[in-house]
């Protein structure tokens, strides 16, 4: 008897293994961009739906595969069978049952779906929120804080514990704003403004990237949300509001001059100077950035040198032209200037 029972249980082993794997909390799927490691209420709510739907689906899958496996074993053709199996054409009660049961399970999911859809929705009226305008460009992000008068690029600074409302639009093609640990994605559409909100509960860096194919540089259009304590955030705002951009060394002064003459300033804005180009990312407080090239390379003098020298070789599709015709001292001067932007 015992053996028979054991055999019976063994049939469920694969299903049990799947369940255990899922139960282990998917620790093996953590990462700095992981949906399964939410850091704010919006992503948390979305993960809740992912998990509840996953469990319902797993249950159905276990039932279906168990029935399938049992059928395949019990009803396999055996040699010497000549009698026809009963030619059953259907069973109204059974067919009704497996129409109605999935429908009820789906109804359960539908309620959560509608609730969460409305909870996630941003509108111009999200109370007590800070508004940031996000504009997608091939292949970088522009962030404008209208209430603070601050403009920056690629690294979105936010205070923790506060609702942040984003007004998303695009200057060229479709892009999509996705920082999985904070919120699911919303597209940036030219001629349309989409509103979403999120909140970061703990200070830290939250990684994301463009999630709507936008051209050659799509994979390198990356994104960092830097969630800071309110004090640190205010400090950052103060820096951005009074940027220091007066070069002190002769080399940096030379660089500043070049910046204006060779064309950099037609595209880039530098806070505190007369450079006010609006095509490429703002370079205000460049030394405060962790990364360059839309978060593709660490912000080191060496990377900055290579970038100024020949950006297209570092990031395919980048719209910034190559300046490889410049001589090494000139590039060094430009880098010295950029390194003085605080």
């Amino acid at each position, binding site marked *: 008897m015992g053996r028979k029972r054991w055999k019976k249980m063994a049939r469920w082993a694969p299903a049990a293994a799947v369940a255990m794997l899922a139960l282990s909390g998917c620790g093996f799927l953590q990462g700095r961009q992981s949906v399964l490691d939410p850091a704010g209420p919006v992503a948390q709510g979305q993960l809740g739906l992912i998990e509840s739907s996953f469990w319902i689906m797993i249950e159905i899958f276990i039932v279906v595969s168990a029935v399938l496996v049992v*059928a395949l074993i019990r009803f396999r053709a055996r040699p010497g069978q000549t009698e026809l199996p009963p030619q059953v054409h259907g069973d109204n009660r059974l067919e009704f049952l497996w129409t109605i049961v999935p429908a009820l399970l789906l109804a359960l999911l539908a309620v959560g779906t509608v609730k969460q859809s409305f909870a996630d929705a941003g509108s111009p009226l999200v109370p007590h929120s800070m508004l940031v305008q996000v504009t997608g460009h091939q292949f970088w992000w522009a962030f404008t804080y209208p209430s603070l008068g601050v403009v920056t690029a690629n690294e979105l600074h936010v205070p923790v514990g506060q609702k942040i409302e984003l007004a998303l639009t695009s200057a060229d093609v479709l892009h999509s704003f996705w920082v999985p640990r904070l919120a699911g994605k919303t597209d940036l559409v030219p001629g349309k403004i989409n509103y979403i909100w999120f909140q970061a509960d703990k200070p830290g860096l939250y990684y994301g990237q463009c*999630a709507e194919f936008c051209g050659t540089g799509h*994979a390198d259009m990356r994104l960092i949300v830097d969630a800071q304590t309110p004090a640190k955030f205010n400090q950052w705002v103060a820096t951005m509001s009074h940027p220091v951009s007066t070069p002190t060394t002769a080399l940096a002064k030379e660089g500043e001059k070049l910046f204006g003459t060779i064309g950099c300033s037609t595209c880039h804005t530098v806070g505190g100077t007369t450079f006010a180009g609006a095509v490429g990312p703002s370079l205000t407080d460049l030394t405060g950035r962790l990364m360059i090239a839309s978060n593709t390379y660490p912000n080191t003098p060496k990377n900055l040198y290579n970038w100024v020298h020949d950006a297209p070789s570092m990031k395919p599709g980048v719209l910034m032209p190559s300046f490889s015709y410049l001589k090494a001292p000139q590039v060094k001067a430009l880098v010295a200037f950029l390194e003085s932007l605080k």
Partner: protein
Amino acid sequence: MAATTERIPHVIPSSSAYHENKLVSWLSVVDHKRIAQLYLLAGLLFFLTGGVEAFIMRLQLAHPNGHVVSAVLFNQLFTMHGTTMIFLAIMPMLIGFVNAVLPLQIGARDVAYPRLNALSFWLFLAGGLLLNSSWFLGGAPNAGWFNYVPISNPPYSPGLGVDFYDIGLQIAGIGTLMTGINFLVTLVNLRAPGMRLMRLPMFTWTVLVTMVLILFAFPPLTVTLFLQTFERLFGAQFFSVAAGGNPLLWSNMFWIFGHPEVYILILPAFGIISEVVPVFSRKPLFGYTSMVLATLAIGFLSFMVWVHHMFTLGYGPFVNSIFALTSMMIAIPTGVKVFNWLATMWGGQIRFTTSMLWAIGFLFCFVLGGMSGVMLAIAPADLQYNNSYFVVAHFHYVLIGGTLFALFAGIYYWFPKMTGRMLSERLGKWNFWLTLIGFNITFFPMHFLGLMGMPRRIYTYAPGNGFTFWNEVSTFGVFILAAGVLLFVVNLFTSLQRGEKAVADPWDGRSLEWSISSPAPAYNFAKIPLVRGADPFWLEKMHGNGRMLPAPGQEHHHGPPNTVHMPRPTMIPLIIAAALLILGYGFIYHALVVEILGFLVLVVGLHRSMFTPDPGEYVPIEEEPAEEVGADG
């Protein structure tokens, strides 16, 4: 009666063009069975092309910051991979099966419009060749298979690639639309006496619904391709924000086509499974009526869900909720199908032929794909899945684990009827297991990658995101998958040469196609059969003498005795398709001379098509197998 004879002035005494010159006979083909072979062969070649593209992409993604291909080439590869697999591989192979099987299952001698059928094929081939020629003519399209604007519009995609996409798909799409019309008319008019709608084999039912979907889904694609062609070639501004256009017009038009398209790809697959499972379980299909209703429900709902591809576009919670609910509803009829298949097996005598193995593999993988499908329908959760590798995993589970596995089940099942030879079961089992294992190793980890935050369509990724391990696993799997698929190609060509000769009814089948010899003769049925119930051939085997009875009053042609009146081969469809191909190149290159040439050929082709009536020809009935004489006596 005399008038009828006069309308057929030229009588060809036998099927002369059929054997004369092999090349000519293929170029002028109108027989649905040979058109089926053309579809399957061309589809297979495009499938292998798309597979090579996928293979290169997997090599590139095996490691972070990979350097196998450039970003520019990678973007062309994923665009062409998707476009090729959907439009030039999976759909044509399905249409190939429809051609091969449907007229046989309803007891017809051909489709309603054999010439149009040939034109459909040649247009598909012309469109596919035009699209793929872009690789050699300055670069393939690179805006993704759904080719969203503005990225596909001139300022952002200045090359010719997207023009090849627009015009290639336009030409192929016209062919598909004709297929839809052709088979609908065939299904309405050419069913054998007694083949009522509720006696149609389930494959035929799914094809009927599929053809309705084609009829309503392809026109939006045609229109939107035209809009973009006008925008790119002649400077129209339908999608340009600056000129008051709307880029979301494309997204909506495309998915109004695109979602029914998904069901165009899966419904015939359901049909194949519904044929294979009963035969190899020795039981009738469980719940025939509910299967028909489920198919109709899926077909209807498929037009109600397109926004679920665009939950992130910002239509707001109200619109998203509605489309989330309609999308979830599709799971109900789909679930009914799955449970009915299980119930068909339950209590049967299951034979594990290669065909049946594929059907079982289908059930496992398709159910997984269906589950992730329901998860994707949950709009707020989809904001996380959308455009991530989770979606990539999902649609490969449905398209490979679903449609492709069903295609394999179908080819092992119907190959004897199509060619007169059996595919090797031994190679077939290797083909199945390698493909199944390789497929799961390749695509299951993609669910994980999506949840870890990996977007689709990226040519590379940063090492810090933790994507590396599962990408390595996935690329490892693709080698096994490729080996499995290549074994099929080996099986196909060796079995065509040396495969075991097939008998008329190798699987103890239930539907009409198994009542005629393998391969089916040119005219399919020497006598149009009388259908006395569902599963008509099974019925005759159980309650009759094992042969179809001839339907009374069906043969009334005025040709020689013991002949069947069949359509005559013609090159006109080929000429029309060639004209559109020439016109297509003319438009892409703004070459007036080529445009005029294409137009002239088109006029000639259409003129010949309209003013050359098809006199048909009388094909002699092959000598009847001796056994039948005995059985009748």
